């Protein structure tokens, strides 16, 4: 299968701040998750692909064309930026029709396609209201709609689910999956593992501007699962609960801090199963269970330190 996106030693920096560094990869059709903590370089990568930034070193090719030399290729690309920026005085319908006109569609076709996209994204009822009156979630959906309304072959989505309510989060995910099933290419960035996990198995891990790993998501999931994990529990009977948990093989240490207890585990799934059993069977009144390092940054820190 030929690569839709291909980069060769791609580097970009902003003054002394590194955006992406020496990225060489090939992305084939399907859904590709771009995963990394905030500031990892995901948005920079997508901005270069969308023609918003120029690499300092290296090349990027879309559909075999060098993006610096062939602007026409952007007719096959849909880009959803991360920012909540809009022409607030326009209505939703006018906005989408305008964006479609800029893709080269005649007025009548643009109008029809805009209505279809509005229907798909659930904004038909509000199509003639100005964007200023939309909620954050509605604006986010409109932003996604402008990216796919012209039916591109490559969809670049930068944190597309930010601010979208749970119902529409599910529907947008279904739309993205549909897009992938049509044999098109979607690159979706997120710093939330679960979000990417529900969309695709195929991921690129970016950290400090570099591709850290790529391939099957189960690989990173395994790494996370073996990563020593901390769980903070607050309960009135903390000493009693600590005594019960201490006998569990998955628990590697227990400490007391900030009015609660911090448990370290090497097997998260087994530990949580055991914890739930204890809470239910022995009727512990638990006020709080949080995982301070249940995020990608902690995983990356752990992986780098290995």
């Amino acid at each position, binding site marked *: 299968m030929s690569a839709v996106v291909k980069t060769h030693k791609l580097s970009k920096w*902003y003054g002394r701040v590194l955006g992406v560094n020496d990225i060489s990869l090939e992305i084939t059709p399907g859904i590709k998750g771009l995963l990394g903590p905030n500031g990892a370089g995901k948005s920079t990568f997508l*901005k270069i692909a*969308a*023609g*918003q*930034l*120029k690499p300092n070193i290296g090349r990027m090719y879309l559909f075999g064309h060098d993006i610096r030399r062939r*602007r*026409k*290729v*952007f*007719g096959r*690309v849909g*880009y959803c*930026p991360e*920012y*909540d*920026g*809009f*022409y*607030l*005085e*326009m209505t939703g319908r*006018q906005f989408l029709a*305008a*964006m479609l*006109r*800029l*893709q*080269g569609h005649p007025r009548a076709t643009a109008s029809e396609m805009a209505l279809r996209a509005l229907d798909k994204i659930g904004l038909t009822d509000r199509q003639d209201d100005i964007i200023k009156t939309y909620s954050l979630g509605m604006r986010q959906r409109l932003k996604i709609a*402008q990216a796919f309304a012209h039916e591109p072959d490559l969809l670049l989505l930068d944190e597309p689910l930010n601010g979208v309510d749970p119902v529409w989060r599910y529907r947008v995910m279904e739309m993205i999956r549909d897009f992938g099933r049509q044999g098109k290419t979607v690159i979706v960035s997120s710093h939330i593992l679960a979000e990417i996990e529900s969309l695709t198995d195929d991921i690129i891990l970016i950290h400090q501007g570099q591709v850290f790993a790529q391939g099957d998501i189960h690989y990173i999931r395994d790494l996370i699962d073996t990563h020593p994990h901390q769980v903070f529990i607050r309960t009135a009977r903390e000493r009693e609960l600590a005594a019960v948990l201490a006998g569990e093989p998955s628990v590697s240490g227990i400490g007391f801090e900030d009015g609660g207890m911090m448990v370290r585990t090497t097997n998260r799934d087994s530990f949580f199963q055991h914890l739930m059993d204890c809470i239910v069977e022995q009727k512990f009144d638990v006020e709080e269970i949080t995982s301070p390092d249940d995020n990608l940054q902690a995983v990356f820190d752990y992986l780098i330190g290995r």
Partner: protein
Amino acid sequence: MSFFPAFGAVFAIFIRLGFRKKRTRLFVFLAFLPLLLLAVIAIVGAFVESRDFSAPIFFSKIAPTYYLQFLVGIMAVFFSTSVLAEELDDKTLPYLTSRPAPRGAVLLGKFTAYFAQMGAVLMAGVICSFVAANWERLDRWVVWADFLQFCFALLLALLTYGAVFLCLSTFMKRTILFGLVYLFGFESFVQYLPGFTQKLTIIHYVKSLIPQVAVEYSFLVVRLQPSSLSGSILTLLFVSLAFLALGWLVFSRKEYVV
């Protein structure tokens, strides 16, 4: 997508959008302000009889100075710098530049839309004020000839100032401040200097199109040594085209980090 369809699409978007901006409402008010003053003059004139305080005199002396030396410059600074600045401030630039439309078409399409809109607002204000002030003299063709020349000078000034400030805004921050200093600092100062220096300003060529405006009503004596009519028109057109081309070039190549 080739240049002209992209230019047309961008123009169509922003000619409509521009009229909904608060800035446009402010300029509508400023363009029609002389009309308001004419109404005041008419009311005062009903009680006080004075040959120096009539509506035609007001329009022929004060209004041209107001439109030519104040409003055109202000309008040009704000509309032309906003072409790019509002895209960056509102983070909407990616919607325009991630499309197959040539970047030059995006910049010039939006500039032309805003220019057309500001020109329409300006002309509406000027025409209404002129008609109201010269209601009893509208049958004299000389009055109309002078007025048309004045309108042409206003539009050419708006285009030239707009092109210059648009170009500067593609690579410079705080273009508004620079523009205001240029308009009300440099240009105001230089016009009192005799010799070649005043030919380094846009206002010199604009005033050369209607030289009588500047000579009579000024706090200081303005030593306008007008250039020829055709020379002034060609200079203003050349400056406009050169700065638009330079702005196009910069915008097509420069990277804007949103």
